[in-house]
């Protein structure tokens, strides 16, 4: 690999330990506060949380392990269809459906991962594209099960845990999504700070050295790819359960591109980058898409290009910069 090229994939400044306390409290408090303050926009809020989870799953695969995938929407869509079909044909208990969809997407990730992860670079990217296209074609052709172009409708969910009905205003849906997101986030946070997570960092930076010190590179990559797939499957399942419909658009190349944009906009390898990116994305989408879907594409495209050119560390980079400035100003003003 050309040394000039690998520069862009070098790791960001290491996470500072003191960022843990406040840094954790803020986004979750905001998410919880939104439940009480933004009661009219809970549907939008739920979409944002689902997007966070989806982008988070991509962060594991692309941000940490450095696997450039253009077909991540395949797992989101697969999870969504699995959850929808499960609700219609098997059981409409939301938690069971969520677990089944997560497992199904994880298995799809494992199978495709074992097939393609020995390749790298452009070939790997094309294989992910081909798998994404294949899954979309399958969903399109199995019209009897998936509804094809019309999408999957008629999903009815039983009350959550047998007690909380999915109400019209989306109270249950929002808290349910938030709880699932928190669970996945805690797991991802823990995993990425484990030796396994550190080894992924190493694989991204220098595969050869990691092999030389005896890391089972391929297995690690398959593992994180499956984990990311399962997580994306959960996001898809949440989307199917809370909107009660699944469309083919969940599988399109545009969806894979959108989640890439959200993650890059927020900032990779930060976990919280997914939060920043998804919130901005959902708000901008709500404004722009009402005007005209094609103007919306212009916004996504221009944002993508701007982030690549000017914002290498994403929104989190700006937040870091602002925090550092504020801290230094604070230090100057308080005499020791």
């Amino acid at each position, binding site marked *: *690999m*050309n040394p*000039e*090229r*690998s*520069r*862009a*994939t070098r790791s960001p400044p290491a996470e500072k330990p003191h960022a843990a306390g406040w840094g954790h409290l803020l986004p979750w408090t905001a998410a919880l506060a939104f439940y009480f303050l933004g009661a009219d926009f809970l549907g939008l809020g739920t979409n944002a949380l689902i997007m966070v989870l989806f982008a988070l799953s991509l962060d594991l695969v*692309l941000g940490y392990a450095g696997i*450039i995938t*253009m077909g991540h929407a395949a797992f989101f869509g697969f999870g969504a269809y699995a959850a929808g079909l499960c609700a219609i044909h098997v059981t409409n208990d939301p938690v069971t459906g969520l677990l089944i969809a997560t497992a199904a997407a994880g298995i799809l990730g494992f199978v495709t991962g074992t*097939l*393609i992860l*020995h*390749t790298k*670079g*452009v*070939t790997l*990217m*094309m*294989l992910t*594209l*081909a*798998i994404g*296209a*294949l899954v979309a*074609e*399958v969903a*399109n*052709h199995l019209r009897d099960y998936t509804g094809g172009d019309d999408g999957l409708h008629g999903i009815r969910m039983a009350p959550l845990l047998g007690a909380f009905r999915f109400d019209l205003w989306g109270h249950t849906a929002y808290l349910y999504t938030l709880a699932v997101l928190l669970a996945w986030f805690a797991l991802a946070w823990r995993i990425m700070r484990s030796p396994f997570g550190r080894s992924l960092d190493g694989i991204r930076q220098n595969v050869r050295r990691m092999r030389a010190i005896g890391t089972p590179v391929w297995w690690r990559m398959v593992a994180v790819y499956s984990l990311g797939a399962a997580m994306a499957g959960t996001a898809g399942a949440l989307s199917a359960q809370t909107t009660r419909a699944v469309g083919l658009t969940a599988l399109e*190349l*545009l969806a894979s*591109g959108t989640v*890439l*944009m959200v993650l*890059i906009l927020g900032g990779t390898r930060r976990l919280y980058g997914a939060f920043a990116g998804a919130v901005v994305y959902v708000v901008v989408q709500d404004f722009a898409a009402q005007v005209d879907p*094609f*103007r919306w*594409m*212009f916004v*996504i*495209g*221009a*944002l*993508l*290009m701007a*982030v*690549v*050119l000017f914002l290498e560390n994403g929104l989190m980079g700006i937040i870091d910069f602002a925090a550092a400035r504020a801290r230094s100003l604070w230090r100057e003003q308080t005499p020791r």
Partner: protein
Amino acid sequence: MSEFTIVLDGIAYGMVLFIISVGLTVTMGLMRVVNLAHGSFAMIGGYVAAVAVGAGVPFIAAAFGAALVAGLTGALAEVLVYRPLYRKGELAQALMTFGFTFVVIAALTAIFGTSIKTLPLPEYMSGLVDIGFRMYPAYRLFLIAFGLALALALWLGIDRSLYGARLRTAVDNPRMAGAVGINVNRLFQLTFAGGCALAGLGGVVGSALLPLEPYYALRYLVLFLVVVGVGGVGNFKGSFVAAISLGVIDTVAKYFLPSAAAYLFYGAVLALLLWRPDGLMPARSAQ
């Protein structure tokens, strides 16, 4: 002998894929940029020609005018979009060119509207021609002849001319090529613009097989990438072989197994890329 005409159909389709994708093998193989924006140049060409033909311009003139527009857009994009990318990683390249595709789609639909564009064929191309044992559409024969002529011209241009020798040198070792006095940047820009012009031309002549719709640049992108990837990134002959074989596989599958055609196509792509990760004919100077 209907099997024979099905194969001919497949070859005609493959020729369209070849005409459009050959420029992509330039960017991906020669300039080493992950280029997800190639479909937008074909789309620009197709849209411009559709509007021109609608205004009464003859088909051939409109096609070459559209190729010119696509080529000029390509030259401009090379400076504005691609040049900042040469030193960045694959991810930045993928994102930037993907974003560029979105912007092009938005711009084209803003200018030309969101309906599907039709590009009526001229009379002499819409009829049937006697090919000995049966009648066959003149349009498809034209595609095959045009594709073959282009392949021959490219082979002569790249394997047999001074320009080709310079280009191959620049690909094999850009620094050394610069040291012996070749203006590598200019050469790449010219080649890139040429590739975009060919994509535009392909978008025009192939519009009956790949309809000009607002999501054209995204919908067929996978197809073009696959041709380049399967053929071996940076190898023109490989792209030719891959485009024809994939065109024939897809067409034959659509005739005999219409319900499974799409699986067969992408399944074949997966199998080919897994069997030969660097494509059927890897370029001599694979990275």
